[in-house]
């Protein structure tokens, strides 16, 4: 399966991968999904270390979002394995993976449209508190959940929009709310799927600063799908290139960006 891409991989593979002492947080082994005869993600093996930010790049249709869906459990893998902190989570449904520490923000804004911004975030805070099955206390009496949700809203500078219904927020604010929900889950692995897509130029830094701040903590693992190459270059410890469902390059940002394979992939050269 890897035979055809083996040659392509050789120039950059191996140098960026070995990072030394950091333990592996998340790993996929020969992860594959087929829709009929088409393999949208095809035998991708990749390990993501604790405290690192890995960007996943590739042209449209390369399988980046599908790869995310396989990791976070929105799609079932045809074959292959996903392990989180050494635990095989391949057979787990999405909610369980989230509770184990896999947090995901979505590419297409995916909120609770008729609830307030605060309630969107509070629901995410509530998951970890284990209060979801509490039938008989009043939501408003759980101040600590509300306060934490407010703090996460403030982190994406949406504190003054707390009571606004999510569906009526401008697009950029909805993207920020999406990030706030991810923060509220307090995961070990953050998966950002084009977090700045459709944002106006002056809003982009807010989100990038948040990602940089998470990275600076050093104990979180970040996966980032992003098209803006300048963003990728400045934030990433490592870049992985997907092309037609296969992992075709993996290494340090400067090396990968300079490599032929990335140029070809982005310039539409499908056949090497």
């Amino acid at each position, binding site marked *: 399966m890897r035979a055809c891409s083996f040659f392509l991989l050789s120039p950059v593979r191996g140098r960026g991968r070995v990072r030394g002492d950091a333990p592996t947080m998340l790993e996929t082994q020969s992860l594959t999904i087929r829709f009929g005869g088409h393999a949208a993600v095809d035998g991708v093996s990749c390990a993501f270390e604790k405290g690192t930010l890995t960007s996943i790049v590739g042209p449209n249709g390369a399988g980046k979002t599908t790869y995310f869906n396989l990791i976070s459990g929105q799609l079932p893998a045809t074959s292959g394995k996903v392990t989180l902190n050494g635990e095989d989570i391949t057979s787990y449904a999405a909610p369980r993976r989230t509770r184990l520490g896999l947090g995901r923000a979505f590419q297409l804004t995916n909120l609770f449209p008729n609830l307030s911004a605060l309630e969107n975030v509070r*629901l*995410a805070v509530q*998951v970890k508190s284990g*209060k979801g*099955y509490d039938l*008989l206390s009043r939501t408003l009496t759980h101040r600590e959940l509300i306060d934490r949700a407010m703090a996460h809203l403030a982190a994406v500078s949406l504190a003054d929009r707390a009571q606004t219904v999510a569906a009526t927020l401008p697009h950029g604010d909805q993207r920020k709310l999406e990030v706030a929900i991810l923060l509220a889950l307090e995961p070990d692995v953050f998966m950002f799927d084009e977090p700045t897509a459709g944002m106006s130029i002056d809003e982009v830094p807010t989100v990038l600063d948040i990602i940089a701040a998470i990275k600076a903590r050093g104990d979180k693992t970040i996966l980032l799908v992003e098209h803006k190459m300048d963003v990728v270059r400045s934030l990433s410890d490592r870049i992985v290139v997907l092309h037609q469902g296969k992992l075709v390059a993996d290494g340090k940002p400067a090396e990968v960006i300079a490599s032929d394979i990335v140029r070809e992939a982005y310039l539409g050269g499908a056949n090497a």
Partner: protein
Amino acid sequence: MLRSLLSDDLPRSRWLAVALLAILIGLAVAPFLFPGAKSLNVAAKICVFIVLAASFDLLLGYTGIVSFAHTMFFGIGAYGVAIALTRLGPGWDAVAVGVVAGLIVAIVLATLIGLFSLRVRTIFFAMITLAVASAFAILASQLSDLTGGEDGLNYRLPSVLRASFSLADGTLFGVRLNGRLLDYYLVYFAALALVLVLLRIVNSPFGSVLMAIRENPFRAEAIGYRTVVYRTIASCIAAATAALAGALLALWSSQTNPDTTLSFDIMVDILLMVVIGGMGTMYGAVVGAVLLVFAQNYLQDLLAIANKALAGVPLLANLFHPDRWLLWLGVAFILCVYFFPTGIVGRLRQKR
């Protein structure tokens, strides 16, 4: 105190607050204000249907589950009490056995339906519940040894709830203090308590997850909530509450038959109550139930008055004939949905 009782879910509209107070007080003094068997019967029915509609709103308005099996649970509660009173005689022990048995059957059935079919899409779930409810209604009319078939069951209530029981000698404001009055207040306070419990549930952390599932089940799963489990629990609570409403009806009317508890007409009625009142607001179910039961019982009388007033006018008199009451109910429903798409409560809350 009031905040805690209403679980922080205040009416948030002056007119809604006025309407709710009027309903609360009106029903409380109904036996004295409107003496007579029919009006007391209507008041008790309103209480029962408020609970039934509110429990249906927990499913439809809060969780986004479309179920047509809600009357089945209503019937299970009613038949539980009816069968127990028929078999064990008119005692409170029989009532307790009937209520508990009805609750158990309702919860087990709701769990089974939930676990087996809440994974499928809304429309398919609705179809499954329709099939189960139809099968159950047929079963109830066929098992005539147990349920009395199409005729249903007639039974004697515990003695303190009968008209022959006197609470005290004499009358209060011209109303005899008998068992029926006691029975009415049993229904009234039970209904009030059940509505307050439902109000608490929808304003609890659990209730907030139900609304998240209604808004976006995919995202609710993605942030870590097991939606099937939450939906199944919500179904069980709704089923149990509907069964209790059925038990109240059985305790009120001393007869239980398929028409009054299991028919599809009742299913349509509670659907209308919730939609007219406003989905996703417990108060909407309350207002909707009051309006619809009122209309069903008094629209004919109202039309008779209109008919008399228009006696000479050729077409109009016919149009306002008391027999046309269903037509006017239909027109009122269409206007309601057209002008208040978010229901009466949704409309009232919009204005602030």
